[in-house]
C-alpha cells in the first residue's frame, strides 16, 4: 500500500509538471490550431536561464538564502521566456498565419532545433547541476516519502492552473482569447486586436513554461540542452489526451499521464511476470494515449471538431 501511495505521489508530481507545459501547447492550439513544437525548448531555456542567474548570484552574494536565489532565478527566467516566445511568434509563425497549416508546423520544428543547438552552444553539452539551495525537508505519510519540494511543485502548479482558469474565464483578455479561438475574423470585427491576443497567449504559455522548467531542474537536480524535447513530447501527449485546445483537458491529461507513467513503470514488470520491464515506461504512456485516441479521437474532455467554426 505504501508503495502504491508512493507511486501515486511520484506520478502526481510528474503530472503537474506535464500539465503546466501542456497548458502552453493547448492554449496556442486552441487559438491558432498550431502545434507549437518549440514550446518544450522554451521550457528548457527557462531552466537554463534560471540556472545561470542562480550561478551568478551564488558567486556574487553567497550569503543570500537559497530560496531567494532560486526565486530570483525564476523571476529572470519568466521575462526571458516571455520575450523569447514573443519573438518566436513574430518571426516564425505570424508571417505564415495565412499559409497552409503544414507550413507553421514545420517552422515550429525548425525553431525547436535552432533553440536546442543555441542552448548547446551557450550552455554546452554537459549536464548543468542544480545547486543544493532548497530545503530538503521530508515528510512520511502512510509510509510514503514526500519532500517539501514535491508539495511546493504540486501546490504551485494547482495555483497556476487556477489562476489561468480565472484569467481565461473571467478577465477581458480571457474573453478576447475565447472569442479569437472561436473565430478570428468575427473577433476582429468585434474590435478584438487579434495579433495582440495571440502574442499574449504565447507569452502566458511561456511564463508558465519557465516556471515548469525551473521546477523540473530543481526536482531532478540537473538541466541540459535536450531536456525540452522529451518533456515537450510528453506534455503534448498530455494535451492531446485531455483534448487539445481545452485548458481543463490539459490539466487532467497532464496529471493522468504522470500517474499512468509512474504506475506503469512501477508495476508493468510484476504484472507481466518480467516479460515487459520498466524500459517500457515511455511506451506505456503512449500506448494509453493511442487507446484513448482510438475510442475518443478528440481526447477526454475535447469537444467535437464539428462544433468549431
Amino acid at each position, binding site marked *: 500500500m505504501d*508503495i502504491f501511495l*508512493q*507511486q501515486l505521489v*511520484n*506520478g502526481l*508530481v*510528474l503530472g503537474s509538471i506535464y500539465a503546466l507545459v501542456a497548458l502552453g501547447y493547448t492554449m496556442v492550439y486552441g487559438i491558432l490550431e498550431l502545434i507549437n513544437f518549440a514550446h518544450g525548448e522554451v521550457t528548457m531555456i527557462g531552466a537554463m536561464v534560471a540556472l545561470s542567474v542562480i550561478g551568478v548570484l551564488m558567486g556574487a552574494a553567497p550569503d543570500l538564502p537559497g530560496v531567494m536565489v532560486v526565486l530570483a532565478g525564476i523571476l529572470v527566467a519568466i521575462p526571458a521566456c516571455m520575450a523569447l516566445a514573443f519573438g518566436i511568434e513574430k518571426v516564425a509563425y505570424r508571417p505564415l498565419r495565412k499559409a497552409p497549416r503544414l507550413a507553421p508546423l514545420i517552422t515550429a520544428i525548425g525553431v525547436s532545433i535552432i533553440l536546442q543547438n543555441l542552448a548547446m552552444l551557450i550552455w554546452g553539452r*554537459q*549536464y548543468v*547541476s542544480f*545547486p*543544493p539551495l532548497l530545503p*530538503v525537508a*521530508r515528510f*512520511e505519510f502512510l509510509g510514503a*516519502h514526500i*519532500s517539501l519540494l514535491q508539495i511546493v511543485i504540486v501546490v504551485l502548479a494547482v495555483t497556476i492552473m487556477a489562476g489561468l482558469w480565472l484569467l481565461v474565464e473571467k478577465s477581458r483578455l480571457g474573453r478576447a482569447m475565447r472569442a479569437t479561438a472561436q473565430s478570428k475574423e468575427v473577433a476582429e470585427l468585434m474590435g478584438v486586436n487579434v495579433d495582440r491576443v495571440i502574442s499574449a497567449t504565447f507569452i502566458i504559455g511561456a511564463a508558465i513554461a519557465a516556471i515548469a522548467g525551473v521546477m523540473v531542474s530543481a526536482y*531532478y*537536480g*540537473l538541466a*541540459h540542452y*535536450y*531536456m525540452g524535447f*522529451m518533456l515537450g513530447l510528453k506534455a503534448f501527449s498530455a494535451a492531446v489526451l485531455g483534448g487539445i485546445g481545452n485548458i481543463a483537458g490539459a490539466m487532467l491529461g497532464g496529471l493522468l499521464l504522470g500517474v499512468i*507513467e*509512474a*504506475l*506503469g*513503470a*512501477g*508495476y508493468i*514488470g*510484476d504484472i507481466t511476470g*518480467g516479460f515487459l*520491464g*520498466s*524500459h517500457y*515506461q515511455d511506451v506505456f504512456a503512449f500506448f494509453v494515449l493511442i487507446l484513448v485516441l482510438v475510442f475518443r479521437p478528440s481526447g477526454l474532455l475535447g469537444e467535437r471538431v464539428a462544433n468549431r467554426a
Partner: protein
Amino acid sequence: MNFGKFAVSALSLALAFSLSGCGKSEDAGNVIKIGSVAPLTGPQTHIGKDNENGARLAVDEINAKGLELGGKKVKLELYGEDDQAEPKTATIVAQKLVDAGVVAVIGHLNSGTTIPASKIYHDAGIPQISPSATAVAYTAQGYNTAYRVMANDAQQGRALGQFAVNKMGAKRIAIIDDRTAYGQGLAGEFEKAATAAGGEIVAHEFTNDRATDFNAILTSIKGKTPDLVFFGGMDPQGGPMARQLKRLGLNAKLLGGDGLQNANFMKLAGADAEGVVASSPGLPIDSMPGGPEFRKKFEAKYGVIQVYAPYAYDAVYALVEAMKRANSAEPAKVLAELPKTDLQGVSGPIKFDAKGDTEGGAVTLYEVKDGAWRVLETVK
C-alpha cells in the same frame, strides 16, 4: 556519402605522404616506428596527452639504454596522433599510421575509438595494445592483433559482484541498467558474479542513457526491500538516481562502475553522493608496485599524472619485450611473441590471455566520504 569516403581516403593519403616523407630522412633499417593514438584536442586532451607522455617516457628510456634487434642497434620512434575521441577520426588516423609503416600501435584511449581502429590494424597485421579501452567487444572480435593492459568491463563487473556480496554484505540486490552496450554488459557480469557469490537479485529494472526520472523504478525497487542497488550506467543518470534514492527513503547502498567514479557524478548527486561506492579498473598510482618510482620519473618530465600514463608506459614495455624475444621488429614475428608476455610492469604483472585481455587485471573500489572519492580496496 561517396564524397565523404573520397575525402577521407584523400585526406589519409595526403597525411600518409607527409608522414612517410619525414621518416625517410633516417636510415629506415635502424628506426622502428611505433604509433601512439589518443585524443590530443577536445575535452579529453589532458587524458590523451597523458597516455602519449606515458608511452614517450618508456620509448625514451629504452632508447637511452640502447636496443639491439637481430644484431643491429635500433632506435624507437614514437608517432603521436590525435583521434579527437571520434570513431571516424580514429579510423583515418589508424590508416595514416599503417601507411606510414609503424610496426605497432599503443592506443587508442576510448573504447569507441579503439574498436573501429582495431579492424584497420588487424587487416594490416600490426599489433595494437590499448592502455585504457575497457569495452569487452574490443578483444572479443577474434583479432590476434588486439591487446590491452587494463581490466575490461567483464572483469570489473565480476569484481563488483563479488565485492557487493562478500565485502558489503549485500543479500538482496536490485539492478538497474541503462540498456547501453556498457551499462548492460557491466550489469550482466555483475548479476552473474553476485548470484554466484550467494546474493539474491530481487529486481532488475531498466532505464535509458537520457532519462532523469527514476522515481517510479526506485519506488518499485523499494517495495522489494533490497540492501544494495547496482547501477550499470554513466554519471548523468547516476547523479539524479543517487538523489532520488535518498529522497524516497530507500535504505540501500548505491554501487556503480567507472561510469560513476568521477567528479561529475559528485556534482550532480550533491550531498547525496555520500556513501556511494563505485569501481574503476586499475590501481591508484601509489598502490602500483612501480608507482612511486614512476611518478617521480614522470613528474620530472611531464608534470602531474592524469590517469592512464602508467598503462601506456607498460604497453610499450610489453611490446618491446616481445620484440626482444622475437629478435625482430617485424609485426608478424612480434605478434607470435606477444601471447608469451610475462612482464613485471609499473601497474602490476602483465600476462595476456588467449583473447588479448590482461589476466587478473586489478579493479579498485572507491567510496564517497566527506565529498571526495576515497580508495576502499583493490581486488584482483
